[in-house]
């Protein structure tokens, strides 16, 4: 058990504990803050795996973007200090049981499966390699998905503006 493993287990425990608290707390604002720490923990896992670029994207997009958006929408739609309505205990127990059974089944399948690791040499995943392959049009290039995602983001932006636009009352 060296330092690297200890860091991994600490980050994993932080992620999972904050995720459980995020779905179980009855204060919606606390749920958003626990979600924030879960996402930071996931970014820590990416750092541990040496994928620095993905970790940076995770922090910028999720922690800096989506969580802030969620917190603003909580401010717009919730009364301060109000707790969420209590759930029926039967529904909670049924959900927990179903989720636990599915999780146990999935883990059983994964641990029985023997993954074959390749001996091929590692390639670097620096920003230069990522950018080169992302915009290459040749084999293994991701230029077409890149353009499709840019169109999707444009469509999502216009859609948000149209949906959230306050419709003016009709002039008489």
């Amino acid at each position, binding site marked *: 058990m060296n330092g690297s493993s200890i860091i*991994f287990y600490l980050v994993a425990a932080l992620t999972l504990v904050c995720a*459980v608290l995020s779905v179980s707390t009855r204060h919606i604002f606390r749920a958003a803050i626990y979600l924030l720490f879960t996402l930071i923990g996931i970014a820590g896992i990416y750092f541990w795996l040496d994928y620095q670029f993905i970790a940076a994207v995770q922090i910028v997009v999720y922690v800096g973007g989506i969580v802030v958006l969620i917190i603003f929408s909580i401010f717009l739609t919730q009364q301060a200090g109000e707790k969420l*309505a209590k759930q029926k205990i039967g529904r909670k127990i049924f*959900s927990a049981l179903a989720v636990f059974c599915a999780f146990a089944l999935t883990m059983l399948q994964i641990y029985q499966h023997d993954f074959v690791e390749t001996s091929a040499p590692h*390639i670097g995943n620096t920003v230069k390699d990522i950018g080169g392959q992302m915009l290459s049009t040749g084999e293994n290039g991701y230029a077409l998905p890149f353009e499709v995602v840019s169109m999707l983001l444009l469509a999502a932006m216009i859609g948000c503006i149209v949906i959230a636009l306050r419709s003016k009352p009709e002039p008489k």
Partner: protein
Amino acid sequence: MNIEPGLYHLLFISGALFFIGVYGFLTRRNLITILMSIELILNSVNINFIAFNKYLWPHKMDGLFFTIFIIAIAAAEAAVAIAIIINLYRSHKSIDVESAEELKY
């Protein structure tokens, strides 16, 4: 099961996060908390892709690109969902899923 973290540990984390998200999705009745559960589910999928890329196909970068595209799509999805939630709040004064049931009958 050895003590050194490896592929199986990462798959355990991503599976646990996925099912925590599913639990939140099933038990919550507030639209914003349902959106948070969806974010947890999408993040667990990202961890899966990165783990397989790191341990099983280290000579390729396909898992990394899938993760980048999933993050982009998740951002777009969250923005549209929050626009819909705010619009629903304007018309119903509530973002509980029980209050939006006109299409049910």
